[in-house]
């Protein structure tokens, strides 16, 4: 079914903007590049909204079932008649939902940055990179081909690299950008091998065909299941490898180390890339291949669930101890993505696909309130010029709008009704409860911890010390209008997004899902969250000795969490100690001394040999005569000897 071609404009507009800004805008109209980028994205976002409306309410469903529509598809690189990389756009509930999220959050960030990045020396470069990122992310979610998604996957990676390292004269930013790229690249290696493996057996790279062949019984499925390596079927290998790629991008344990460091980038970038869009690409990838996971390979799905729930709890614990507000938010992002992951992991395909729906729902609401949190944090950082909690406190008087919107976002992430996070979290917990009680228990614990650290953050920024040391009399704490409007819009959405009828729109098989409201799953976690908020209030609303005492009491655990459980140190040991010193250095040494040494030795031997025999050609006639007669004599003797 061919779909509307105007879809192509959604990713192409940011691409064109990128080209214009980087080729001419940078030089000739640097001041207007921000407006240009924002305008083109506004158009893109409008088209996305229109597409979503068309898809969800006009022509997307046939007999109440949402269809997959190929909007367009062009062969980009053909390996054989069946196997080719195509560039296309695949519309289905999740991709349509994603283009709305991506363009909308990106638009908010574009508007916000007009104020936030004003006066920045590389202002136009910043907008060029933002456009590049938006293009890549849109291409990623629209992908109709598994190799296409890999291509855009790498492109969002490089946009993220460029934006994290935006302040390139800061060594820490350069190091963080490098780390982010290399860690995700390592994960992408898994993704690539996974693609090769799946594509080899399914004999296609096209998503629809691939999913169809590997999720329904038949020759292809039998073939890939019967092929095995180390006792594990090729299908499991393939899916787990693909998931490794997703885990890298989505900062799942143990590939999460790059995300906290990525906060070196400008804060609006963190809001867009490292909170709302790029980091959920891994969730999107698993959701895209969900039929294969759910119907052919439950083992791989269990792995997804375990990794998700562990990352979720792990990150929540670390978040309680961090003092840099952006790092707290980064760990909270990791924790919430863990939520989305395990929601997928506990889900089934079709009727019992509550987890799938809940995961996508949480992705949607999380994008709103987490972007809001980051943008709010950006406003705070803009004001106090520091990321550290200790430099903040009592800001509610100076920044009333930021304060209120930040509070809304905190309530949303803590899962307090009627804010957005409550609805999606409740669905996830219900799904977990029906699938696995252990996961459910861990998830509820995480929810409580989340409420605690978010309000620790909130009280530390906006309450605590009443007299702010640096800005005592300065009442102009709020940023310009361009920064406030996105906060207000996102704040509003964080309140109402929870009412979106996701179970009708976004489900694993396109059929609407029947969900019931369970008081148990709603009331229990909300009660826990409220208790956690009260605890946070007692500890952090006023200057108090309590937090210090508690951390003193739990010293070893606190230290371990504060040091992020030493994961960075382990990585450093492996890269520096093993890869550099035990592989790199010996390779370079062997090359210079053994391989090249052998070549040089051959040259030396030749030279020495010629040096040795050189005296024979001395040019002295007498010597030649001696040799001549000696030779003659020798031959004569030889002949006589042979004759006899």
């Amino acid at each position, binding site marked *: 079914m061919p779909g509307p071609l105007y879809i192509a404009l959604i990713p192409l507009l940011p691409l064109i903007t990128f080209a214009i800004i980087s080729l001419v805008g940078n030089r000739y109209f640097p001041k207007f590049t921000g407006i240009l980028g924002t305008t083109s994205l506004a158009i893109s976002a409008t088209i996305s909204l229109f597409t979503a409306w068309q898809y969800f309410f006009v022509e997307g469903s046939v007999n109440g079932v949402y269809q997959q529509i190929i909007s367009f598809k062009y*062969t*980009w*690189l*053909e*390996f*054989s008649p069946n*196997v080719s*990389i195509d560039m296309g756009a695949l519309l289905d509930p999740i991709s349509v939902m994603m283009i709305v999220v991506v363009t909308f959050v990106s638009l908010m960030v574009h508007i916000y940055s007009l104020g936030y990045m004003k006066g920045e020396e590389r202002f136009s470069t910043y907008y060029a990179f933002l456009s590049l990122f938006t293009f890549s992310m849109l291409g990623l979610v629209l992908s109709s081909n598994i*190799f296409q998604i*890999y*291509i*855009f996957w*790498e*492109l969002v990676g*490089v946009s993220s*690299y460029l934006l994290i*390292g935006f302040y*390139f*004269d800061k*060594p820490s930013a*350069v*190091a963080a*950008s*490098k780390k982010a*790229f*290399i860690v995700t*690249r*390592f994960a992408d*290696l898994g993704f*690539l*091998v996974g693609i*090769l*493996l799946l*594509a*080899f057996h399914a004999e296609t790279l096209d998503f629809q065909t691939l999913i169809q062949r590997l999720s329904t019984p038949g020759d292809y499925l039998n073939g890939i299941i019967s092929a095995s390596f180390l006792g594990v079927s090729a299908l499991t290998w393939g899916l787990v490898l693909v998931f490794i790629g997703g885990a890298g991008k989505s900062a799942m344990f143990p590939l999460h180390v790059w995300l906290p460091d990525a906060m070196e980038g400008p804060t609006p970038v963190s809001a867009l890339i490292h909170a709302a869009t790029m980091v959920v690409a891994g969730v999107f990838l698993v959701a895209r291949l969900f039929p294969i996971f759910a119907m052919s390979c439950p083992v791989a799905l269990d792995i997804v669930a375990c990794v998700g729930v562990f990352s979720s709890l792990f990150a929540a614990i670390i978040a309680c101890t961090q003092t840099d507000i952006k790092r707290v938010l980064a760990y909270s992002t990791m924790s919430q993505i863990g939520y989305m992951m395990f929601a997928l992991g506990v889900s089934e395909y079709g009727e019992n696909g509550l987890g799938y729906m809940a995961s996508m729902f949480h992705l949607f609401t999380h994008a709103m309130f987490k972007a809001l949190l980051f943008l709010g944090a950006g406003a705070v950082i803009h004001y106090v010029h520091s990321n550290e909690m200790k430099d903040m406190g009592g800001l509610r008087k100076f920044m009333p709008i930021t304060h209120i919107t930040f509070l809304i976002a905190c309530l949303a992430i803590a899962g307090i009704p009627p804010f957005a996070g409550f609805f999606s979290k409740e669905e996830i917990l219900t799904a977990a409860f029906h699938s696995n009680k252990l996961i459910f228990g861990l998830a509820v614990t995480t929810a409580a911890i989340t409420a605690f650290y978010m309000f620790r953050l909130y009280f530390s920024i906006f309450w605590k010390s009443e007299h702010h040391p640096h800005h005592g009399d300065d009442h102009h704490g709020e940023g310009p209008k361009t920064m406030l409007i996105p906060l207000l819009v996102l704040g509003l959405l964080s309140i109402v997004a929870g009412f979106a009828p996701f179970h009708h729109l976004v489900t694993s098989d396109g059929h609407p899902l029947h969900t019931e409201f369970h008081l148990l799953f709603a009331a229990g976690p909300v009660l826990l969250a409220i208790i956690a908020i009260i605890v946070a209030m007692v500890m952090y609303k006023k200057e108090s000795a309590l937090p210090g005492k508690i951390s003193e009491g739990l010293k070893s655990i606190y230290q371990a969490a504060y040091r992020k459980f030493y994961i960075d140190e382990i990585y450093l040991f492996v890269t520096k100690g093993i*890869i*550099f010193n035990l*592989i*790199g*250095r010996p*390779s*370079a040494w062997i*090359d210079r001394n053994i*391989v*090249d040494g*052998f*070549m040089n030795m051959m*040259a030396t031997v030749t030279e020495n040999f010629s040096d040795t025999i050189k005296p024979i050609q001395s040019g002295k006639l007498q010597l030649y005569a001696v040799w001549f007669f000696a030779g003659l004599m020798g031959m004569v003797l030889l002949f006589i000897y042979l004759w006899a």
Partner: protein
Amino acid sequence: MMTNLTLLILVPLLAAVAVAFCRNGEQAKWTAFIGSLCQLLLSGAMAFAYFAERKAGNTAQMLFTERHSWFSSLNIEYYVGVDGISVAMILLTAFVVFTGVLISWNVQTLSREFFFLLMLLGAGAYGFFISLDLFTLFFFLEVAVIPKFLLIAIWGSGKKEYSAMKLVLMLMAGSALVLIGMLSLYYYSDDGNGNRTFDMLKLAYQNIPLEVQLFAFPLMFTGFGIFTAMFPFHTWAPDGHSSAPTAASMFLAGISMKLGGYGCLRAATYLMPEAAQEYSWIIVLLATIAIIYGSFATLMQKDLKYINAYSSVSHCGFVLLGIGMLTKTAITGAVMQMVSHGVMTALFFGAIGMIYERTHTRQVEQLGGLLKTIPFLSTVYIIAGLCSLGLPGFSGFVAEMTVFMGSWQRPDTFNRICTILACASIVVTAVYILRAIGQAVMGPITNEHYSHLKDATWNERLASAALILAILAIGLAPFWLNNLITPDAQIIMENVARGGLIE
């Protein structure tokens, strides 16, 4: 006229002669510029003519052929013609020569001689890529070797005499191996009436006895392999590249290493299919070692040129891997990688040369913050780096992925492991490229002197833009290159498959 391939040799030769008769350096460089521009236009026109001809349904294996008897008693002919693979290589050569001249705009000493040699190198490369007669092929291979010695020894830097000697001796050893292999093929090409031939299109279907193939193939493959820096015969590359002047580095890595790859494919694999199958695993093994070991050795390098030279060893490993894997897709990928690496590495060495001209150092730890002071050149360096680490949108990605896709079609464990190891190198590549970029180009300005550097001049901008355009043309729209190469990769594969070992 566009279909007269001999022009491709004559134009650079005429340019060389014209340069030799110039009065001063200024005239010489403009003559060389015009000469190389003519070559670029001619190659472009020839490529268009080729496309038009194919579109019109001409299915001959070689187009625009031309043959003259050269030395009739040994049946040596001047026999030229092109297929898609040669067209791709010719375009590459034209781009690299053109930009090489532009980058060498500031050569002061003996500039007439410099451009003369550069043009001569070009003539050798074009001749090599259009030859269909083994002897002609060998002849042009030699033409492309000698000028390198002079270019490095006279205009080079560092321990240039040592490097020039090393490079030429190793390449000469390679040529000698090729010569022996070639002569054994010639000797056994007897059609029963005592007629022997150097004609490659005939030799390929001559059913050379297996013993002869097993003897000649390693000689020929190793000989050409030395040119393309095959492990363990790659050690000329780091020293040679780093001592060579910028344009010579560009030529050396951009074209000369591709002469080897092309030879491995056209002369060794195509002509000796059974032996190619027999030795496939050794090639794959050596290529995998080169890829992995080259990338790890790069990690430890501190000089920008050494970084790129070692990474070239690793990247050319993909060419050999693609050839060794013996599938249509892998061979297509190998040719794509030759073109892609040629353009990319020319850009890389060009950028390094331009930076070196300004900072007078190539040591990574002495550089820093260049993005602030010379943004254009630094951006060029970053683009070359991103292409090298296989970013989609640039040519490297397309080529590597095609090699991987092709290699994956060999399902046995050995080839699988080698493919996965080769894939793993993309991570190591990212590490060394980003380290170099992070230290040399980004970060704070480390040297007061750097804040007064001047950014690129018009010729440097033009050269960089031309190469970046070529990289993007492959990276964004790979289908044209793919369509150009695949049919001929198919022909080579069909011949190899006659050996019967591969389905």
